């Protein structure tokens, strides 16, 4: 079945279907994401299609620092995406909550809840950077094969010092 596996890898790399989800973003990154489908950048040359249903998609593109209201929705939608799947965090908000650090309405960076494969930094990132991120995620998807993402069972806890906060208010409110 080696030929079939190689064919499947090629097809997964060349046909990434996206589903876009906004978890409280300011919409800057969302605008740049749909700008990558415009004639100048044309994500469709890579086979990218923006799908209407999470069941149709392979790659989940998430923008926005994860607000508390959005956590349940993100976990539901991540469960609805059929495997094999990859997640791209667009902008610096889902990676590290950016300027909204210490906010009481947020629930941590995105990889506290779901495993993230590619981070596209920028505020907002340029559309060509987003396309690079999606292409890298398609490559990861092709190489991953049928294995689930590494931390699918237990969510990863961020260990870097970016979310440490020493003020008293956060010690009371955050879990």
């Amino acid at each position: 079945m080696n030929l079939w596996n190689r064919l499947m890898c090629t097809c997964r790399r060349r046909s990434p279907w996206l589903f876009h989800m906004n978890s409280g973003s300011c919409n800057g990154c969302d605008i740049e994401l749909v700008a990558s489908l415009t004639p100048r950048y044309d994500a469709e040359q890579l086979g990218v299609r923006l799908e209407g249903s999470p069941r149709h998609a392979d790659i989940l593109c998430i923008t926005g620092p994860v607000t508390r209201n959005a956590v349940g929705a993100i976990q539901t939608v991540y469960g609805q995406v059929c495997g094999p799947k990859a997640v791209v965090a667009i902008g610096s908000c889902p990676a590290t909550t950016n300027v909204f650090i210490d906010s009481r309405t947020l629930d941590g960076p995105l990889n506290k809840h779901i495993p993230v494969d590619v981070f596209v930094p920028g505020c907002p990132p340029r559309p060509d950077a987003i396309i690079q991120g999606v292409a890298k995620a398609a490559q990861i998807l092709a190489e991953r094969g049928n294995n689930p993402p590494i931390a699918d069972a237990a969510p990863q806890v961020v260990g870097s010092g970016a979310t440490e906060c020493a003020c008293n208010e956060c010690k009371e409110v955050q879990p």
Partner: protein
Amino acid sequence: MNLITALARLLIFPGLLFAVPAAWFFLWVERKAVALMQGRIGPPFMQPFYDFIKLLGKTTPLREGIGGLLMKAWPLLAVSSAAGAVALLPVLPSSGGFEGDLILLLALLEVPSMCIIAAGFSSRSIFGEIGSAREAVLSVSYNVVFLLAIVSIAASQHTFRLEALAQLPASPLRWLGVLAILVCLPAKLHLNPFSLPNAEQEIYSGPMVEYAGPELAMWELSHGLEWVAATGLVATLAAPHVTLWWIAAPIFVALSFAIVLLLSILASATARLAIDTTVRFYWQCTLIFAVLAISSVLFMRLRS
């Protein structure tokens, strides 16, 4: 026709083996034409093939009970009937396709739409129900015009056989009928301006919302086969009568290609119309011409 010939025509040419690559080719032509007209470069040539294989490799959610079985059955039914419709097309004029007449072709062309409607309802999702309801309303609207136009063309020749209809003499009635069918094609193939059932952002892909993996691959394939069958039907009715098969077959292919380009121009030039405007368009504007066509045919038959 013996069994071997029938199976060969159904499975090899112009059946499944020819129809599936033709479906992928037509899907690519439509995407590429729309992209070029929008100033982009579109997907590469093998893109529908890559999409199909990738979808075959995805997992599907578990659905238990009879609902799960039904959801698996609808895309298979859609693909097989659309492939049968393509197998009926008279690509080579003398031998024709799989033997059958116009009524069978129309019935097989209708089944995928019925399957979409049923699939939306059996997915038990509210978006599926809205999409299916829209598809049902659209189907009722354009089918009246479509069937009246085809019946008027067939009645004027006193036959329903496809080979006879492929060799029609030129007449204004025939062009009127072909024009009416062309107007119904965007609604049948879910193209702008009548692409309401699978409104992506409004209702999360409508009837297809719960489908994933190999089932979705079958839906995409049935969509491509519908393209081939519908454009082939119009090409059959519009093509001039040529006896030599090695001129007639390329003419057939070229006409289908031209129709695909025409529909792509329409799809990229227009936006999606709402359901009330669509229904009003078909029932108020185009129904007049179809009624004119059928009444003139009946009048001519009464006189003769």
